[in-house]
């Protein structure tokens, strides 16, 4: 087992990517993920891989399209405004069935907002900020170890399903130092062949075309059906989640990423004060582990969704728990509630649920 290193989340991402076989990185600086291009600028060349600081996020995502279309494991990293600029490109990548990995280090929005931690880009990543019916697999790490592990997993899933995988994280996890086990050198990995890649025919008896244009409605419809079928497979096979203290739980908190960390502290506090609270943490935000959540959510008195947003994952929780009391607590703009503040909210929410005063629909923000 490799030694522990005290690493920044952004640093862990770089090692995770390179160790996960990343062959090309294209990115543009933006706080709070600047360490990613900075480290990649020397780490990639060290292993003979391509690094280029693109002139913009739009160029980045389109360079990825090219590199990925040519059969390479390609990645970019950005934060909220930069990710928004990639929406057309992401939709193209999804449409052209290309694998790629995108690191989204969320910061405060909307607009220029600020550089403080946030989780307000959930909808963008999970529901699809670009046009058309497509999905990204979305992974949500919660500590430095997962910041290291997820890029590799992301590349594997991306190649397996030929689609974009987003590692959705935030300014805290990106800039926080924490121990993680990271080998010194990239481990041996196996990368699947990509017979579809447009890398020059090299004697192949047919040309490969990377494309998302299907002019005939029937053909585009079939293409969409194929994508939807793939998404259905992923929903069946790739849901991942994590729980803490749920076995005897009477109340549940659902949170991901940094929120789950705060929630974990808060539920421990709550338990000290006598309330049996458990934590449900989706690790894949898409596919969302609805059934696993329902299994627990249906036997507790209520569920509090905690996010650094105005209530986005909330909708997926509500969809997973129709008719069950679901409460919400959120903070926006980079404000992080302390565990004790959240603990108070847990008590209030639990009380409302116990008293039956938690409206089962009042939080619908549609």
């Amino acid at each position: 087992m490799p030694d522990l290193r005290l690493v920044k989340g952004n640093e862990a991402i770089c090692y995770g990517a390179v160790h996960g076989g990343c062959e090309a990185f294209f990115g543009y600086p933006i706080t709070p993920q600047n360490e990613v291009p900075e480290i990649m600028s020397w780490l990639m060349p060290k292993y003979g891989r391509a690094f280029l600081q693109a002139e913009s996020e739009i160029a980045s995502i389109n360079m990825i399209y090219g590199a990925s279309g040519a059969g390479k494991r390609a990645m970019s990293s950005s934060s909220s405004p930069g990710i928004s600029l990639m929406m057309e490109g992401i939709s193209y990548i999804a449409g052209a069935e290309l694998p790629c990995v995108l690191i989204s280090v969320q910061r405060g929005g909307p607009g220029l907002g600020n550089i403080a931690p946030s989780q307000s880009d959930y909808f963008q990543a999970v529901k699809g900020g670009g046009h058309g019916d497509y999905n990204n697999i979305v992974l949500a790490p919660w500590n430095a170890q997962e910041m290291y592990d997820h890029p590799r997993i992301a590349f594997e899933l991306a190649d397996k399903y030929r689609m974009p995988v987003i590692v959705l994280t935030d300014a805290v996890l990106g800039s926080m130092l924490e121990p993680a086990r990271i080998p010194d050198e990239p481990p041996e990995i196996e990368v699947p062949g990509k017979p579809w890649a447009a890398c020059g025919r090299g004697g192949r008896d047919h040309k490969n075309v990377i494309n998302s244009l299907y002019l005939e409605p029937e053909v585009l419809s079939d293409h969409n059906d194929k994508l939807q079928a793939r998404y259905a497979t992923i929903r069946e096979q790739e849901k991942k989640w994590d729980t803490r203290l749920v076995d005897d739980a009477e109340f549940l908190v659902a949170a991901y990423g940094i929120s789950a960390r705060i929630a974990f502290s808060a539920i421990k506090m709550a338990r000290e004060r006598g309330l049996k609270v458990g934590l449900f943490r989706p690790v894949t935000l898409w596919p969302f582990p609805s059934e696993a959540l329902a299994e627990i959510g249906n036997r507790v008195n209520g569920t509090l969704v905690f996010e650094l947003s105005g209530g986005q994952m909330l909708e997926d929780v509500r969809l997973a728990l129709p008719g069950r009391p679901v409460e919400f607590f959120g903070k926006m703009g980079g404000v992080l509630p302390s565990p004790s503040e959240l603990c108070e909210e847990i008590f209030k929410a639990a009380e409302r649920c116990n008293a039956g005063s938690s409206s089962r629909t009042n939080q619908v923000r549609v």
Partner: protein
Amino acid sequence: MPEVQAEQIKCVFDRPRALADRPHHYCPGCSHGIFHRLVAEMIDEFGLFDKTIAIVPVGCSVLAFNYFECDVMEASHGRAPAVATGIKRTLPDRFVFTYQGDGDLASIGMSETIHTAARGEKVTIFFVNNGIYGMTGGQMAPTTLEGQKSTTSPAGRDIALTGPPIDMCTLLSSLPGVAYLARIPLTSPKNLNTARKYMRKAVRAQIEGLGFALVEALCACPVQWGMDPKQAIKHIDENVTKVYPPGEYVDRVSGNGKDKAKAS
């Protein structure tokens, strides 16, 4: 001993191998078809068939992946140079070219065009300047001539409101990353031969690792110009070339290694 001679039929002109044997979707007299063939000839001539990756744009030539027989990627509107960069950076020994229209390259894709040129990216761009948005129905392009009617300049392009047409060759020629830059109208067999000469250098600029190369073809879009194909060709020779002088703008490929940076 007198030589015995016999007569044989020799093919002097036919479709290049890299050009698919199928009908184009272009309008009658559209220059895209000619330029496609010239590009395909280059692939044949340089023996690049198996190591070429073409990037086709969004524009009338959006379906060009059906016509080039090499591997192809379809880029989003304007971003072909970034796509080319992504490929070339990971497969530096391949021949990577983009084929782009003027809306694609000079309007929405301006940033990618300039930056790819500025980086001296070793890619080749075949640029179809027909001064109009063909595909979407004849709207004004940045390259539309002064006074030219289009569906978004129905009274003719008013340069007081839109600025004068953008001359991409001149604009790019100041960038040191550019190894080759030339412009030619596709208006006669003679010009096609000049085009071939330029295109050869644009291919060599990449193969020899010299830098970014672009050949701009002044093309006809008879339909959106409201002209018949012959008129359109004449219009290019008489009017378009005045605004966009043909010639070599940058040449770091030719033997002497010096730039020849003057339009003829």
